[in-house]
């Protein structure tokens, strides 16, 4: 019998510091920063779905980062966040970088949901796990308002035995800021009589009064194979500043990976983004005029890549 193929969802993120010396367009690499996303020798093909780009700055080291999706806001006139991408060793797809916003085709969404290009199949007895960490309330003017959060998560699936929809879901009680909680796993268990193809995952109860998940709920999902899909607060949220690495302040990490908050650059199989397992996806980001601002210490961009790794159970 042919081995069964499964597609493991993955998320990779890199936070890049942008140099303020603008030589990106004139040939020098100093303003450009490179993010590279390789899978190692896991699985067979790697299907890239999309990547999100966020652009931010930090006024003072230790302060919360300010995120902006405009790719030109808050930076001097005529300066843009420029980008190009491609496969390592094969060159970028274009020679001259263009504005990051020109690649972005999807804007902000109301709710966090990730629809899969390929289903992820779980088998009877297997359990999904998700952990949520409460985050700070929204700052409304000078007053910080903590909204009650009773978040939950749902995996949207189809039973393979009869093609009927099957939802795996779980919610928590109210969570205080900084407190972490594992969602009850009873609702996340695959039924005993049929595998379930998961076609998407969504989180709910996480938006603020403005219906935005501004600072990003801190989610962690662990599959039945003990593999962590993604966790918001990871080492990559440490970026290099001047004298050394500085962690973006706790509680302010932009965690949007179930849905890209600002800009989503679609890849997908229809455009040929089925990557060999030994290939590496690279993104280059830079600016074309000096990034100077009286109150700004440094600037950075965050790239979040999502996709699926093909594996077989043979």
């Amino acid at each position, binding site marked *: 019998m042919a081995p069964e193929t499964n597609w493991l969802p993955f998320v990779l993120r890199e936070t890049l510091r942008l140099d303020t010396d603008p030589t990106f367009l004139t040939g020098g690499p100093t303003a450009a920063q490179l993010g590279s996303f390789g899978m190692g020798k896991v699985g067979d093909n790697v299907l890239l779905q999309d990547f999100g780009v966020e652009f931010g700055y930090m006024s003072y080291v230790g302060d919360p980062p300010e995120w902006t999706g405009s790719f030109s806001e808050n930076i001097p006139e005529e300066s843009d966040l420029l980008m190009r991408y*491609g496969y390592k060793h094969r060159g970028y797809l274009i020679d001259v970088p263009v*504005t990051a916003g020109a690649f972005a*085709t999807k804007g902000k969404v109301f709710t966090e949901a990730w629809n899969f290009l390929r289903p992820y199949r779980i088998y009877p007895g297997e359990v999904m796990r998700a952990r949520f960490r409460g985050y700070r309330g929204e700052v409304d003017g000078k007053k910080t308002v903590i909204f009650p959060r009773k978040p939950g998560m749902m995996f949207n699936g189809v039973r393979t035995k009869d093609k009927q929809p099957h939802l795996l879901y779980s919610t928590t009680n109210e969570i205080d800021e900084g407190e972490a909680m594992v969602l009850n796993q009873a609702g996340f268990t695959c039924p005993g009589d049929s595998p379930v193809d998961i076609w998407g995952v969504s989180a709910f109860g996480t938006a603020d009064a403005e219906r935005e998940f501004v600072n990003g709920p801190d989610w962690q999902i662990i599959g039945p194979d003990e593999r962590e899909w993604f966790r918001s607060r990871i080492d990559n949220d440490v970026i290099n500043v001047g004298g050394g690495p500085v962690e973006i302040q706790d509680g302010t990490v932009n965690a949007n990976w179930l849905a890209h908050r600002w800009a989503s650059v679609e890849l997908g199989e229809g455009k*040929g983004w089925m990557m060999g397992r030994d290939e590496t996806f690279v993104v280059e980001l830079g600016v074309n005029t000096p990034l100077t601002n009286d109150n700004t210490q440094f600037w950075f961009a965050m790239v979040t890549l999502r996709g699926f790794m093909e594996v077989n159970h043979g």
Partner: protein
Amino acid sequence: MADKHFVPRWRYQRVEIPAEDTVRLDPVPFSNMEVWPWDLRFLSLTGEPVVATEGTTYLSDFGGVAGRVELKMGMSQWGSLNYVPIEAVAMMPPLRRPLTLPSWAVYGSRFQFERPIILPPDDTIVAEVQNTSGDAAGGFSLVFNGYRYREDGTKQPEQLAGRYDAELGDNVSDTLDSSDLSNDGEGDIHMVDMILDPTLTPPAMNTAGLKSAWKVNPNTGIQWMDQGVLIPEGNLAPFNRLNYDDMDAGPRAFEFPKGTVMRRRQRLETFIRNLTEQDQVVHVCLFGYLEVS
């Protein structure tokens, strides 16, 4: 029988409609002057918001220009598309992407080709952009996403892009650098979508998609857009939510019933009535695929 080959074709006109008046659009841009059938897809409409009534107009801004004009269309040798004039807001639905929020982020306006458009080896996309933002601006960008077939039959991602890095004065146009807009490889590039980006510096608002105008054509073969005119990005790619569009005032499009084909020498006759007490400028664009065989 040779396979059918499809070429996108946009045709555009700008019209100023006096207050509470009806204007018959010039039938020439909206006629099929080619020998091939023109498989119509949509008629897009956009315009800068006008103050519809005195005083507060916040609510009346909803729907943008589509709420302030009504249309009546017909095709020669065929008859009316609608027998009574219909307000554009009823004829042209809002965006079918309900779960997105308006934002000030400036994204590209994407046009998704119905089927991949082929750019043969050594062919080049020639793109001209006009700055219509009202102020000097630079950074206008154009991106094509697509793929090429490798020898083993798998797809390899391809991208074409151009950026106008220098500054353009208001209403000035120029041609984009074409170094990245050429198919210099072996084999065809199959272009899946086209993205137009005016690259504004916020807080510039681009609700109506009128900050840049474009003329994009392949260097050889059948042209996509007329030579004499540049078309606003909102008309070229109306199915995008643009920045600051929190009142659904963006471009609209009437989608023709499937199978609406304009034969050669046929034309679309369009009347637009201004429902407001002010003169309005509206931008209208007809899009379809030429069935070249």
